[in-house]
């Protein structure tokens, strides 16, 4: 019951958040100087016709209400730049690429990050610990697009181990996954290490040891369990960083995902596409955060939602 109330509350807050976001982004894009249809070749009559066609001749508040009404039906509008294509269609075709890349990056970052962090903590001060520290520093300080260019140059252009661009086979996924996931991997490794060290020297682990439990029981039942729990809270911000990461990494590797559309839509002032993608990303992010919070509340008894 408590859990249901918690979820309901979070859902309501999420909906309000998304509503505010839609409103803000709708008006913000209008403030960007320039217009989507500024081209020397375009004649004045054409321009008026196009404006009328897209409803841009109406007052802004009216445009807003029309937009909101369509949004309630799940319609994000039509792109101004890619003729005759709706934002919904763009998302439908491009999002699977982004989702695939994002999930690969998260999976890579999670498994490797946890592994490195745990090993580093148990091998404190030894070679693996130093290695993890170096990875953490590189991963958190080098932005993903620089990492992208770097691995593309080294492993695709120079060494020719992997294809440099596109996204059609497993080999194509390796470099972008690495470039996108490394930052997260570093964050996870760093947090896991700290968290593990804290837990290893905690009183309750000493209690477990004093009971005469086996190493396995101590590590799995008391150390990992407690050390990894707070890592779940990192997943929210991590997913956010993956999403922003895809924008640039997809461009570097010419992957036909949503991120690339986002960049081109901003460059071309494609109002509906910018707003539509912003809403989509925001909703996705809010949903992910909601899921993470629920999962965390479910597994950590201290939050008090577990019966």
């Amino acid at each position, binding site marked *: 019951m408590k859990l249901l109330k918690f979820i309901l509350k979070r859902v309501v807050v999420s909906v309000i958040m998304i509503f505010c976001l839609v409103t803000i982004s709708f008006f913000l894009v209008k403030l960007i100087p320039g217009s989507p249809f500024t081209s020397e070749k375009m004649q004045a009559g054409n321009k008026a016709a196009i404006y009328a066609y897209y409803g841009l001749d109406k007052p802004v508040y009216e445009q807003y209400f029309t937009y909101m009404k369509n949004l309630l039906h799940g319609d994000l509008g039509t792109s101004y730049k890619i003729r005759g294509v709706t934002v919904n269609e763009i998302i439908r075709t491009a999002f699977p690429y982004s989702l695939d890349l994002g999930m690969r990056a998260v999976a890579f970052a999670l498994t490797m990050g946890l592994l490195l962090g745990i090993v580093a903590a148990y091998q404190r001060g030894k070679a693996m610990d130093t290695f993890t520290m170096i990875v953490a520093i590189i991963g958190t300080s080098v932005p993903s697009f620089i990492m992208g260019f770097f691995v593309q140059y080294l492993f695709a252009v120079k060494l020719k181990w992997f294809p440099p661009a596109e996204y059609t086979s497993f080999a194509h996924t390796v470099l972008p996954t690495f470039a996108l996931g490394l930052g997260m991997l570093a964050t996870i490794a760093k947090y896991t290490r700290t968290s593990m060290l804290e837990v290893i020297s905690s009183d*309750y682990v000493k209690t*477990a040891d004093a009971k*005469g439990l086996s190493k396995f029981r101590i590590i799995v039942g008391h150390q990992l*369990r407690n050390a990894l729990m707070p890592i779940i809270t990192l997943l929210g911000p991590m997913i956010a960083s993956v999403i922003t990461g895809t924008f640039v990494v997809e461009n570097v590797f010419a992957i036909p995902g949503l991120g690339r559309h986002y960049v081109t839509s901003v460059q071309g002032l494609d109002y509906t596409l910018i707003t539509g993608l912003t809403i989509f990303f925001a909703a996705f992010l809010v949903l992910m955060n909601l899921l993470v919070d629920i999962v965390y509340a479910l597994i950590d008894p201290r939050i008090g939602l577990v019966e």
Partner: protein
Amino acid sequence: MSEQILKVEHFSVSFDTYAGEVQAVRDVSFALNRGEILSIVGESGSGKSVMTQSLVKLLPAPPARIKSGKVIFDGQDISGYRFKQLRQIKGQKIAYIFQDPMTSLNPTVKIGKQVTEGLLAHASVSRQEARRKAVELLRSAGIPNPDKRMEQYPHELSGGMRQRVMIAIAIAMQPQLLVADEPTTALDVTIQSQILGTIKDLNRSLGMAVILITHDMGVVAGMAQRVMVMYGGRVVESGAVRDIFYHSAHPYTRSLLAAVPRLDADSTAPLEHIVGSPPDMLAPPAGCPFAPRCRYAMEVCRSHMPGRTELGDGHDTYCWLCDSRAGETAQAFLRGERVVHSGTE
């Protein structure tokens, strides 16, 4: 069967830190009889916890390192035991209760599981049997509604209740030795005496020897048969409770006793009002660790470690004042103290 359950000889433990070697425990020797309650007292930082936890290697190594010494438990030298062998001792024969009940239970694991996992690790019992036994244990540790508690998490229990859970965990296998490391320091006074009462009852009913570490001389008087005073990682005096209270021969013990509040005052007041602070164990003094704070310190105290002086009936002290070679002034300090035999090592 030997009368002694535990005998510790020349036990030294250090921590290897970036700043250098912290010599937390230095050359500690003592023995404990079956069923006896020995109290270890001394200001915080004197090495009580490190010493007792190192007996079964509970401290992560590194940084902890047992430098030397023998630990003879129930006739067996366990000082060379590795993790696997120590599992037969830990929880089964020697059990621990730690100072802070708020942190010594795992916050994410139900009480029930924390009690049963010890049972399942040692006895070949089914889960149901372990559960039934756990309920029983919680009850004998003085916990009301043990069935309900089994399903609760530590944060749902008060400090006193959590310490009782720790007691239940500790007595699960009917250990021969219970190490209670300041079990009531974190609790309020009424809960304190209840918990101590429970420990004393278990000591009697199970014949379980107890090492009771405490700050509180008042607790010592009510609980222990013998006392060991530690300072700067070393034993400075030990003996029967009566001898320590009425005939203490060591200036440090005397200041501890002088710092004991009167009956009418709050008995939880800390003992820290001995002028000065304990020595830095990174560079402990060459001579008597108490010398920098001792009113009676002599030249020899600063340069040479005092040896053991046996005062009879197992009353030993480590102070130059009691040394047979000490001058008249020193003897005067003892003011009619009975000095049966004096000698240095």
